[in-house]
C-alpha cells in the first residue's frame, strides 16, 4: 500500500536500480579484466624480451588450473583442511607451470632463437595444440569442478553483488603486477631483462647471460599463468582442457591493446577489455534499439582495439621500438 503513494516519484525509483546495474557491470568487467590482465602479463613479459608471441601461454594457464584441482582434491580427500589444500594446490601448480615454461623454452623456442620470426610463432601454436591434447589424455574430456577452497562470502554495495573470490582476484592481480614492476625495475635480474630486451647481443657482450634471462622470463611468466589459472578456477569453479584457448586469445588482445611488451599496458589493457566487454554485453541492445544483441559484445572490444591501434599502433602504453617491434 505504501508503494502507491510513491507514484509521483516513480522516475526516481526507476533510475536508481539502473545505477546499481551499471555498478554491477563495472564490477563484472573489473574481475574479468583482472583475469585477462594476469594472463596478459605472461604474454607481454616474453614478448618484451624476445619479441615472441608465446601462444602456448593460454595452455600453461589451463595446466595450472588442472594441476591445482588434482592436488587440492587429493589432499581434501586425505582430510587436509580446505585452505591448506588450496594453498598446496596453488604451490604445486606454480611449480609445475614454472617447469613447463622452462621446458617449453628449451624444447620449442631456444633451438629457433635465430630462425625467422614466423618459425617460433608456428612452434608456439604447435605447442599449444600438443599441450591441449596431452591435457585431454591426462585429465579426460569431462568438465572438472574446482574444489571450494575459499569460503563463499557475498557482499552487497549499493545494490551490486560481489563475492570474496572476486575481491581476491582484483587484489591478487594488483599485487602481482606491482611485484613484477618492482622485479623488473628494482632488481639486478630486472636490469638484465631490460638490457636483453633492448639489445640481446650488446647485453651479452656486457656480461648478461641472455639464455638465463630468457629462461627466467618464461619461468616467471608461467608462474603468473599458474596463478591466473587458480584464479579462474576458484572464480568459475570449472575447468576443462580447452579453457586456455579463448582465455589466451582474449589476454593476447588485451596485451596488444595496452601495448605488448609493456607491463602496465598489459594490466590496463586487460581491465579495459574486461570492462568494455561487460558494458558492451549489458548495453549494446539498448543502444541499438534491440538491433544488435548481446552476442555482439565482442564487436565493442574489437572496435576499441582497432581505433586504438589506428591512432597508437603500438598500443596504449606501447613504446616505439623501431625495428624490433
Amino acid at each position: 500500500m505504501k508503494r502507491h503513494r510513491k507514484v509521483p516519484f516513480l522516475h526516481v525509483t526507476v533510475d536508481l536500480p539502473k545505477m546499481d546495474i551499471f555498478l554491477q557491470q563495472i564490477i563484472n568487467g573489473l574481475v574479468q579484466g583482472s583475469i585477462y590482465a594476469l594472463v596478459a602479463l605472461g604474454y607481454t613479459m616474453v614478448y618484451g624480451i624476445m619479441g615472441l608471441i608465446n601462444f602456448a601461454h593460454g595452455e600453461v594457464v589451463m595446466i595450472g588450473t588442472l594441476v591445482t584441482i588434482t592436488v587440492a582434491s587429493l589432499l581434501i580427500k586425505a582430510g587436509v583442511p580446505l585452505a591448506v589444500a588450496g594453498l598446496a594446490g596453488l604451490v604445486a601448480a606454480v611449480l609445475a607451470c614454472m617447469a613447463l615454461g622452462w621446458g617449453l623454452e628449451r624444447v620449442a623456442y631456444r633451438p629457433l632463437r635465430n630462425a625467422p620470426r614466423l618459425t617460433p610463432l608456428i612452434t608456439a601454436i604447435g605447442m599449444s595444440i600438443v599441450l591441449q591434447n596431452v591435457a585431454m589424455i591426462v585429465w579426460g574430456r569431462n568438465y572438472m569442478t574446482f574444489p571450494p577452497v575459499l569460503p563463499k562470502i557475498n557482499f552487497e554495495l549499493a545494490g551490486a553483488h560481489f563475492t570474496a573470490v572476486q575481491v581476491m582476484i582484483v587484489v591478487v592481480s594488483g599485487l602481482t603486477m606491482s611485484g613484477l614492476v618492482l622485479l623488473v625495475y628494482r632488481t639486478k635480474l630486472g636490469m638484465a631483462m631490460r638490457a636483453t630486451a633492448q639489445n640481446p647481443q650488446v647485453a651479452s657482450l656486457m656480461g648478461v647471460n641472455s639464455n638465463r634471462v630468457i629462461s627466467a622470463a618464461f619461468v616467471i611468466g608461467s608462474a603468473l599463468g599458474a596463478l591466473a589459472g587458480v584464479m579462474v578456477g576458484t572464480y568459475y569453479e570449472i575447468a576443462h582442457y580447452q579453457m586456455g584457448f579463448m582465455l589466451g586469445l582474449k589476454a593476447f588482445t588485451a596485451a596488444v591493446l595496452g601495448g605488448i611488451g609493456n607491463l602496465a599496458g598489459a594490466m590496463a589493457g586487460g581491465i579495459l577489455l574486461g570492462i568494455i566487454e561487460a558494458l558492451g554485453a549489458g548495453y549494446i541492445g539498448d543502444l541499438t534499439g534491440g538491433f544488435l544483441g548481446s552476442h555482439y559484445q565482442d564487436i565493442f572490444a574489437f572496435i576499441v582495439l582497432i581505433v586504438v591501434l589506428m591512432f597508437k599502433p603500438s598500443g596504449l602504453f606501447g613504446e616505439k621500438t623501431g625495428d624490433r617491434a
Partner: protein
Amino acid sequence: MQAKFTAIALSVAAALALGACGKKEEPKPVAAPAAPAPVAKPVIVVKLGHVAPMTGPQAHLGKDNEYGARLAVEELNARGLEIGGATAKFELLAEDDAADPKQGAIVAQKLVDAKVQGVIGHLNSGTTIPASKLYSDAGIPQISGSATNPKYTQQGFKTAFRVMANDVQQGKALGEFAAKQGVKTVAIVDDRTAYGQGLADEFKKAAAAAGIKVVATEYTNDKATDFKAILTKIKSTKPDLVFFGGMDAQGGPMNKQMKELGIKAKFLGGDGVCTPEFMKLGGEATEGNYCSLPGMPLEKLAKGPEFKDKFNKKFGTEIQLYAPYVYDAVMVVADSMKRADSVEPAKYLPEVGKTSYDGVTALIAFDEFGDLKGGAISIYQYKGGKLEYVETLGGGPVGAVKEAAAEVKDAAKAVASTATEAGKDAVKAGAEAVKDAAEATKAAVEKK
C-alpha cells in the same frame, strides 16, 4: 640400373598386391572357428559412420554418444546378425566434428567417400543439418540420436531420421510447463547454435501463447564461461524465470552466476542441460530448477535399468545424456537391414521409414518426415544432486505404463522368432503384428 629399378618397382607392386589379398582374406579366419560346419558362412562387413564432437566443450557428450554406438555394435556382432545369407560384422567409423558446422560437413564427406552404409549422428543440430544434405545426395540413411532442431527433417531429405522428439514438441512442452508453474515473466538466453536458438524460439512461441511475457532476450555462445554481463542485464528486468537454450557446460556456470548476482528467478532448460554434468558444474545453485528430456526417464522404461547396468559395467562411467538414443539409432539401422535382407543403403532405406522397433528409449516408428512418432517430453527437477522425474507431457503409446511396454516387448520377441524362421514375408507380417500390439496396448492404457 634400370633393371634394378624395375625389380624394385615390381617387388613393391607385388607386396601391395599381397597386402590387398591379405585384407580380403582377413574376415574368413574370424568366421572359421565359429562355424565348424563344412560350409563356413560368408562375412559381410557393414560400415556405420558415427559423428559427434570428440574435442571441444561438448567432448564429454560426444564420447557418451560414441559409447552408446559402440555398445550397440558390439552386441550386434556378438549376436551374429544374418543379413542376405551372410553374417553381418558391424564396424563403427567414429569421426569428430568438434560441434562445428564446417567440420561437420568435412567429416560427412569423409564418411561418404568411405562408402559407409549408414550414419549415426551427428550430435548437434548445427552440424547435423548441413551434413544431412551430403548424406541425402549419397543416398546414405542418417539417424541422429540427439539433433532436435525441427529443420533437420523438414528439408525433404528421404535419408534423414531422428529417434528423439524435436524442439517444436520440446519447446511447446516447456512453455506449457512454465505457464503451469505460474510464471508470468521470462528472460530467454540462447547460445546461438541451431539447437539453442531453435529451442529458445519454440519456447518463446509457446510461452507467448500461454500468456507469459518475455522481458529480455540475451545471447551467449557455446564456448563461454562468463555470463555475468548478460545476467546483470536480465536482473534489471526482474523475470520469474530464466530460460536457457543451450548445453550443460554453459548452463551450469550460468546457474552459479545467477545465484552470485542475487537473481531469484528459477531456471529452466532443455535436454542440453538435463545431465549429471550440469549439476556438477552448477552445484547448489541448480537445486529446485527444472529441465526437460525427450522420451521417458530410463528407470521408467522396460529396458532402461538393464541398459544402464550394461553401460556402467562396460565403460565404467555414468550415462551422460544421449547414449541410449544413439544405441537405439544403431539398432534401428540393423533392424531395417535385417528386414530388407540387405545392407545396401538403397535397398534398406525404404525399410527405415517402416521401422517399428521396441528400443530402449521408446517404441520407435517414424512419421513421413523421419521424425519420431508421438515423442513424449519429460520434465525433471534438480534435487539433491539428482535429476528427479516430475511428469511427462505429450507422447502416444510410448508415454504409457511399464506393463504396456512389456506387452509390446513380448510381441516383438514373437516377431523376432517368426522372422528367423520364415524369412522376409514373415518379417513384414510380424512388423504389422507389432503395430497391432502397440495399438492394443494403447487401447488398454486408455481403458485404464
